[in-house]
């Protein structure tokens, strides 16, 4: 009888979803940036790399940075969950600790991916990182596809999707934040679209032009595009409402509030409200994630063993 789910397992599932999404989004952002750097004859490598660090919330340090360093730190660093390798490693270990809750196919997908990374990393040193990033993206898609087709729509499933959705909003907001707060370090709009995997979807809605207000509007407010903030928030809220019982759910409230704000936002007003809106989105996601932790997986402090006579 599996009608309940251990807090520990729920936490592992949430973070598996989050970390795979993080690896996927990071790979897409790096790919879009790399491509833009090669294609833009007037690029300034140091500036572009700094904006990448800013998006991914990593400190760039005072010295000039180049793309190789970015890859070492944001793709190949197995010790940091802000890098692709670290995120996938953490996703794999989380999935392993929830082995009976995720399907075997999902676990094998993550495990095989983890083992395939080393080869691709070596190849990347030789011929560039494209193959590595491609592998990460296709395996992330495979992972969520397997989750979609092998997990029952029960609470375990909801935690995976909740993690993925929260990470998704966070990533979209990060991309836009760097663009909005500081044009000098920012990626151009087409890069931003391809970093969100939204270029073709956007072209279908607006024709192939990326201009400021419309790209921001698309990435925040589009109802149909799965990586838009509104879409991901709606999904997260659905998961929470199915998981939660109390009406005043502290995890759901910040998200629901922002979702309604986005739903009824005037497009013309979007541009001037953007900085505040992005900040509020970030805050809401963090608050919600913290409330989820508090409510569903409350932590005991780690047990510390004292050596007798120490």
């Amino acid at each position: 009888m599996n009608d309940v789910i251990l807090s520990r397992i729920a936490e592992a599932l949430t973070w598996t979803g989050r970390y795979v999404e993080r690896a996927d989004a990071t790979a897409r952002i790096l790919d879009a940036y790399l491509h833009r750097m090669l294609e833009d004859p007037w690029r300034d490598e140091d500036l572009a790399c700094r904006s990448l660090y800013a998006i991914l919330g990593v400190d760039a340090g005072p010295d000039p940075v180049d793309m190789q360093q970015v890859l070492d730190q944001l793709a190949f660093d197995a010790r940091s969950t802000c890098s692709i390798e670290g995120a996938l490693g953490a996703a794999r270990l989380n999935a392993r600790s929830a082995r009976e809750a995720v399907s075997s196919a999902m676990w094998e997908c993550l495990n095989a991916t983890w083992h395939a990374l080393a080869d691709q990393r070596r190849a990347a040193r030789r011929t560039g990182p494209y193959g590595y990033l491609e592998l990460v993206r296709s395996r992330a898609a495979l992972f969520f596809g397997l989750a979609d087709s092998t997990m029952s729509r029960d609470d375990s499933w909801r935690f995976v999707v909740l993690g993925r959705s929260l990470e998704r909003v966070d990533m979209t907001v990060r991309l836009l934040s760097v663009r909005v707060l500081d044009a000098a370090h920012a990626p151009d709009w087409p890069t931003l679209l391809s970093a969100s995997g939204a270029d073709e979807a956007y072209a279908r809605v607006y024709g192939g032009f990326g201009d400021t207000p419309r790209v921001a509007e698309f990435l925040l407010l589009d109802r149909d595009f799965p990586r838009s903030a509104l879409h991901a928030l709606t999904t997260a809220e659905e998961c929470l409402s199915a998981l939660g019982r109390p009406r005043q759910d502290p995890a759901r409230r910040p998200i629901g509030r922002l979702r309604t704000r986005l739903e009824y936002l005037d497009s013309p007003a979007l541009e001037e409200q953007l900085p505040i809106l992005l900040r509020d989105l970030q805050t809401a996601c963090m608050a919600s994630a913290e409330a989820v932790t508090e409510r569903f997986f409350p932590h005991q402090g780690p047990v510390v063993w004292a050596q007798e006579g120490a």
Partner: protein
Amino acid sequence: MADIFDAYALADAWDEMFERPGEVRTAYEPVLAALQPIEPGELRFRADQMARAFTDRGVTYAFAGEERPWPLDLVPRILDALEWDFIQRGVSQRVRALEAYLADAYGPCRAFEDGVVPWRLLLGSAHFHRAAHGVEPPGGVRIHVAGIDLVRDEAGDFRVLEDNVRVPSGVSYVIENRRAMTRVFPSLFDGQHVVPVDGYPARLLAALRAAAPERTADPRVVVLTPGPSNAAYFEHALLARLMGVQLVEGHDLVCRGNRVWMRTTRGEVPVHVVYRRLDDDFLDPLHFRPDSVIGCPGIMSAAVAGNVTLANAVGNGVADDKLLYTYVPDLIRYYLSEEPILPNVESFRPDEPGQLEAVLDQIDRLVVKPVDGAGGQGIVIGPKADAKTLERTRRAVAADPRGFIAQRPVALSTSPTLAGERMAPRHIDLRPFAVNDGNDVWVLPGGLTRVALQEGNLIVNSSQGGGSKDTWVLAEGPAEGPARSADEGAPPAVAPRQLGPDGTPAGVQEGAQQQ
């Protein structure tokens, strides 16, 4: 030190990379420096990667009845800023002149009255369509997209080989080649300033929207394709996708009351601009070939009535007939009062009195082309042909002088191309693509460089087993935007990432959570 360029022997032509054996041209220095230390095996490996990537993405072409990955050579073709400026001015001039000629041919016919071009050239052209006469296209544009084929002769001068203003294809390969090169060979771009090519779809869409019939506030543009079995279907789909418009086949459209609609799940939706990728003959069974099943009956009447714009316009074939080609320099002088920037290849017109004999006499020293051929078909290269072929060609030209032109053979310039394990010179051409939006003829920086993969072969068409190269236009400097100094301070702080359990067993977890 042995390297892949070691045995590179210059052919009897202008070489794009080397001025003299061992002396590299300035624009190519960084690329040569990047390529030289690479082992042949490594190059093969990358070439295979490229082929696999193309196969996976469906960037293929049909050759001898099978799907082959689009062949892209690893050595780019480079044009410096000065060369490019010259080419794009020349191409744009050519398009403007042909545009003027079409407006004239389907309107007042001044050039014929003034004797610049003989009447028979128009009236004897298979592409002259009465239906197009008197149609006033919006913005005066009939050539929304042009592909002008250039070659570089022995002296290093660019010359026009032919004009394509009907349904020029190949631009998708320009976009895909660049994409593949930046992904498979990123190190080649180090420290280079190569002008991007990804602005094409936006330009094309803007031109197509500008060409919509007046009175439409928000025109709907579609790409009309013959369907998935067409050799260029990949390109049709790519352009539709990048422009974010529908890709339609003939039977998706329906004409009623001289208007064009498309059948959708939400009923019929009006269409205003059709970027059609099929020839005039197949466009409308009511007007042209009645056996065409890939067109849309009635679309021509809708265009004549001014309710839909066809791009490119019907009847453009009178302007890229190879015989008309020989008159284009005169047309530039006549319509634009300018001197031609890009010269033609020296040509003969067998249908002019006196020239037929000259052509027949020295047919073994000329290149003979059917005026209507496409894809390099029917071309006879005199110096390389055997007696039997020459005799057959001689008879064909004598029987139908209007059907052929003859040209002085140009030794196309060569570019180092990977052949087996090393570099060898192969002949190349260049097809820049121009988009005319009515105000301005924009030329996509670079274009499609095609390579004849067989040694000594002068025909570069992919239908004849040719390959291609990524074409780089080097930028001079930032076109706009203030210079940014590196000490503008750090980018804004975005909140740090949230961290969760990293899955390591409890107990080891203390301090294991790294930022």
